[in-house]
């Protein structure tokens, strides 16, 4: 009798389309590079320091947690690095090292790992880190104060703070093109609007983030800001300022679209995006915070499981 060859036996399907978590995460990192490069050019070495520290500590925290929970190391899939990178992009370049390390700890451990790792997180991990830092050390996020030692060739102004504290007259000189080309102060990676849009569109075309969420979010911002402006144009800024300043563009393409905390069905994605947009403007115009993006996304993350219940009836179901 001949020796029986051993074959690999597993369940169907025997084909796979080749998509990988790793590919997705690396492509998102690739997409933010333009905006990131603009930030580094603008803020110099301190920005590089913050980015490097953030990415490396995020990976470090995830590895520690993998060891503690005796799981296989998941840092290879790029998600920890991505979390660190997105987190760094939302910080001012002058962020002290201890705040960066604390922030990534909160992002990775509290935002993600304690829920069981990637996929289990009900909130966007980056925003959990951001929210805790913003509440605990509010002064660190005063961008005008943080950038006082920089010398720029344009009006040094964090538009949303100026709007909040000095009223609409203080930001009248800002044009959409200036804002989009990064002529505003703000976080390391979130001021160069053209770069963010380019990266976001790339991700949408490649199917790594869903257009439904980004588009409805931006529409939500536009419509709500427009309504406020129409109601009282002396107090409230128009849609352009809201769309192109603060974390808006960054949030639309890179934060609100995070898989685990966002819906998957078509109508829920539209509702989810629009709700974040509306909430962002409400916080900016009525709330106490300068930029509402972080809290708006977190709040709607919370509603995600309920919104996502709006789904088509499965085949052959009576109810």
């Amino acid at each position, binding site marked *: 009798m001949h020796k029986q060859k*051993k074959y*690999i036996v597993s*369940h169907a399907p025997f084909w796979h389309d080749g998509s990988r978590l790793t590919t997705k995460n690396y492509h998102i990192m690739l997409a933010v590079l333009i905006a990131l490069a603009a930030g580094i050019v603008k803020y110099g070495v301190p920005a590089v320091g913050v980015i490097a520290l953030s990415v490396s500590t995020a990976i470090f925290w995830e590895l520690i947690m993998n060891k503690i929970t005796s799981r296989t190391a998941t840092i290879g899939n790029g998600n920890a690095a991505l979390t660190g990178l997105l987190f760094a992009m939302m910080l001012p370049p002058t962020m002290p090292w201890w705040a960066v390390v604390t922030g990534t700890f909160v992002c990775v451990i509290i935002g993600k790992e304690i829920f069981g790792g990637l996929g289990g997180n009900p909130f966007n991990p980056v925003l959990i880190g951001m929210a805790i830092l913003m509440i605990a050390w509010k002064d660190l996020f005063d961008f005008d104060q943080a950038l006082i030692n920089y010398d720029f060739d344009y009006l040094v102004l964090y538009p949303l703070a100026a709007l909040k504290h000095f009223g609409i007259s203080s930001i009248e000189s800002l044009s959409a093109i200036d804002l989009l080309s990064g002529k505003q102060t703000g976080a390391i990676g979130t001021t160069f609007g053209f770069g963010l849009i380019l990266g976001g569109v790339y991700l949408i075309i490649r199917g790594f983030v869903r257009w439904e969420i980004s588009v409805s979010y931006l529409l939500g911002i536009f419509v709500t800001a427009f309504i406020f402006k129409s109601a009282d144009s002396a107090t409230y800024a128009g849609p352009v300022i809201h769309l192109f300043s603060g974390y808006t563009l960054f949030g639309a393409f890179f934060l609100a679209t995070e898989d685990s905390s966002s819906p998957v069905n078509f109508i829920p994605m539209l509702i989810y995006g629009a709700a974040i947009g509306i909430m962002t403007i409400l916080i900016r115009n009525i709330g106490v915070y300068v930029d509402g993006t972080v809290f708006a996304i977190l709040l709607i993350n919370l509603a995600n499981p309920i919104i996502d219940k709006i789904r088509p009836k499965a085949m052959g179901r009576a109810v």
Partner: protein
Amino acid sequence: MIKRSFIGLFSPVLQYEELDTSKTVDSIKVTGAVTFFVDKKYSKKDSLLIKPGDKVKSGDIFSVFNDSEEMIISSVTGEISGIEAFSGNFGKEYTAVTVKTESGGNNVNKDFGKTLKKASKSSLNQIIKNFPGVVSDTVFVNPDKPVDSIVITGMDSDLLISNNKYIVKNRIKDIKAGIVFIEKMTGINSFITVVPESLAVVAQDIGVPVRVVELTYPLASPMLITQNIMGRKVTAGKTAEDSGVMVINAETVAAMGAASVKSEIPGSKIVTVIDKNGDTRLVSAIIGTPVNTVLSQLKIDVNEGDRVITGGPLTGTAVYSDSHPVLPDTEAIMVQDREDIPEILDNSCINCGECVRICPAKVPVNLLIRFLENGEYDEAADSYDLFSCIDCGLCAYVCQAQIPVFQYITLAKHEFTRNNTVEAENA
């Protein structure tokens, strides 16, 4: 293997294979032994109607067990050489009957057609299970399932396969005779044919209404044909037959026609063979021929660590031995190189939604998988549409986290059914 396209905005669309009319169909010569599977568990205590050493002729119809109706149609002439137990997937038990072919065994049962016509309804059901292309275990004579329409499908169950398209193209007469036979035996007189666009004209000659199905996978699945083409309401967890529609392969109908008119023994099967490069060819194989005989005659090498699959790339079954026989429902034999086998990982679902967007039955796979991973099968069936799934395999095909979603679903359906059966028995 079809990969994700560069533009990922929309869900990938997989297409069924068109019939390549330029290719010829080779016959596989059977050497040595063939094996038939009987859908019943075998134990040494069973009283059997056959024993090793018995002579059988090609076309002989015989029962195996004294106390069971299961029957076999021998596709070869020879001598029974072994009867043994065989375990399939999910603990399914079969009895494998091996027949050693005799050289120069041209002695065939010439009265097969007569036997078929004289058979009672219940034995006819058992006999027809041995016909090539049969995929349903109820066939069409079932008092519990009020089938009123029969769909003859010229479509195939999976990608790369073109067996039924080949039959529609080449065996119109046999299909017509098969329709006459079915009508006579069952009294059902509502027939339609579903074919791809390219065969719509040819299929007119069958003489029953023709409907065209797009080549988009899985539109040819019996449930979707019942819902979309027949306009019937389908019920989750039930089959197309429960909605009154019997979807039957063109190959089976042609075999019935040939058997009833020409007394042709339904002993061979058209099989699509898919090699390591994904190239396909059609062959005609005697039912019961071991897979390795087919592969060696086509000069396809299989090495240790490769994968041998009966069926197509999305819904087939991997077999652990290449001596597995070609069964009446073996539509394809596929060989996959060890380098090409996609990796499966134990990631959690990241909720990307690719599976939800591609699911033809609109199952919330992202929610379902969370219950399946934790063995919550009752909840999965009640609230998350487990039984709406039509087993197409697309969810696992697109899964970014490389979760074996389809395997979880199959396991869940099996476990849920088993638990509920045990509960019903103990009640």
